[in-house]
């Protein structure tokens, strides 16, 4: 469709895009500014980035963030894939189907703060039984995995819908048993969807603030939590440098995700 759009549509669109990018541009520009206080431009510098590398707290937070995202994605992706496949590829009916879909969509329709509140309440009870549920990395991982499973399963469901039935039926016609079917047909075809789901889960975990904030312990600060605390104390230029780096990481992950989604949502060539 190559239509000529009314001028005000184009203007609004550009305005919307500007609104989206203005904050990030500001942070990047400020991170390169040589002035400690104030907003006057005082020359180009990379010293704030250098200072970052010596900041113990920031490095710890960055490590925690990556460990949290990595471990939770590693757990959530297989579970989410199983859930997605299990929901779509079997003839569930009526109440069973509705119950399963309810569980699947619950994390998606709950505001994160309600989800976080439920997690805190649950962990405060489970703490009676085991030390594992003290606020810390373990509880954060458990909480993250719980909402990641739903999103991975949704991505897998879309991918399965795109794939359709033909290839699996053909495999069955050629005497494949379930194990062979899964290993040699379903899983390879599903792979772009699995990777896309994993990247989505990873991004969601990296960016998560509210859920981490509620379930974190004193030793398990993540970058978003650190940034939030720092903003409340007082904004420093190191913060701009850190935010720019986080932003760049997110850009890379987002672009990869977009690439993969494109592959995942196109029909396989037979």
């Amino acid at each position, binding site marked *: 469709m190559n239509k000529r759009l009314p001028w005000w549509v184009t203007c609004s*669109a550009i305005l919307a895009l500007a609104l989206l990018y203005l904050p990030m541009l500001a942070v990047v520009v400020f991170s390169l500014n040589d002035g400690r206080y104030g907003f006057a431009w005082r020359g180009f510098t990379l010293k704030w980035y250098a200072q970052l590398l010596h900041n113990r707290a920031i490095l710890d937070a960055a490590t925690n963030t990556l460990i949290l995202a990595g471990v939770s994605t590693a757990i959530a992706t297989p579970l989410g894939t199983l859930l997605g496949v299990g929901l779509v590829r079997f003839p569930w009916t009526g109440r069973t189907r509705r119950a399963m879909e309810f569980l699947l969509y619950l994390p998606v*329709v709950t505001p994160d*703060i309600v989800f976080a*509140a439920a*997690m805190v309440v649950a962990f405060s009870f489970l703490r009676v039984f085991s030390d594992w549920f003290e606020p810390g990395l373990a509880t954060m991982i458990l909480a993250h995995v719980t909402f990641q499973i739903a999103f991975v399963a949704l991505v897998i469901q879309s991918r399965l819908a795109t794939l359709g039935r033909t290839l699996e039926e053909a495999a069955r016609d050629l005497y494949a048993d379930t194990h062979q079917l899964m290993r040699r047909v379903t899983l390879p075809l599903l792979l772009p969807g699995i990777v896309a789901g994993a990247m989505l889960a990873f991004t969601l975990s990296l960016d998560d*603030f509210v859920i981490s904030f509620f379930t974190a312990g004193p030793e398990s600060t993540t970058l978003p939590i650190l940034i939030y605390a720092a*903003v409340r104390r007082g904004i420093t230029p190191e913060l701009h440098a850190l935010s720019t780096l*986080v932003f760049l990481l*997110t*850009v890379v992950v987002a672009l990869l995700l977009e690439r993969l989604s494109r592959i995942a949502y196109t029909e396989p060539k037979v």
Partner: protein
Amino acid sequence: MLIWYGEATTPGRLRLRGLMIAGLPLLWLVILLLLPSLTLVVIAFMQRDAYGQIVWQPSLGNLRRLMGFGLLAWSADYIIILLRSLWMALVTTVLAVVLSYPLAFFIAARPARRRYFWLALVIIPFCTNLVIRTYAWMLILSQHMPPAKLAAWLGLIPPETSLYPSAFAVYLVMVSSFLPFAALPLYTTIERLDWSVVEAARDLYAGGYRVFWHAILPQTLPGLAVAVILTFIPAMGVFVVPDLLGGAKTMLVGNLIQQQFGPSRDLPFGSALSLALMVLTLIGLFALRRRRTGAPLP
């Protein structure tokens, strides 16, 4: 016996296999999602004693507190906060959707090859951290930067003040943060728009507004529904934005809940608030669904 995906089998065997495959994740969700949610609902009706422990006697105390019957005279504080959150979420959703339509049309009007570039442009902020974006807006809206200076020059605010904390700042940042959530689903339906219907409307002498309302809008309803859901739900529960940019006058439910789980240590009341938030969210979603008139085109 039935044929399922080319295999001859019985429903019983299929069910067993399905349970083996989906069983583990379902178990996880039941234990770590369903049970906590039920616990939340149960605790909402309990009270907290002087030491912060939970008193296991069901009571409607939290409910009455929400309605305003506190220790002293009746005050509408909590009700106001709940309604304010509902209102701000509705306004944010409407504004985000209104801004998203031109954006989605713009992207759809690009030649097919360049569309992915523009889509990536919209997806990137979508993946950025809300805390970072919020504090970036704090920088932009501060008194030393052009926007605040312009507003002061225009007489809208006293000189030498920032544009935050204020309701305006909260609205601005919420709309700009949730814009991608609205734009992407809308885009998926606009990309597939059937322009022949629009042409037909024009042939029948429809003016611009009617063309949009009757020919374009009904076709975009599925995407619009998703856009509204994806924007409204997080907007109801947002707490970072009002916390950093809102100040005391624009306190929202999110901040209240965070207070209960943090400084106040009042888990039952926090749970009651969360419950109220969920109920309001469902009411709001229901109201938004009914506002959209007309049925999708057959």
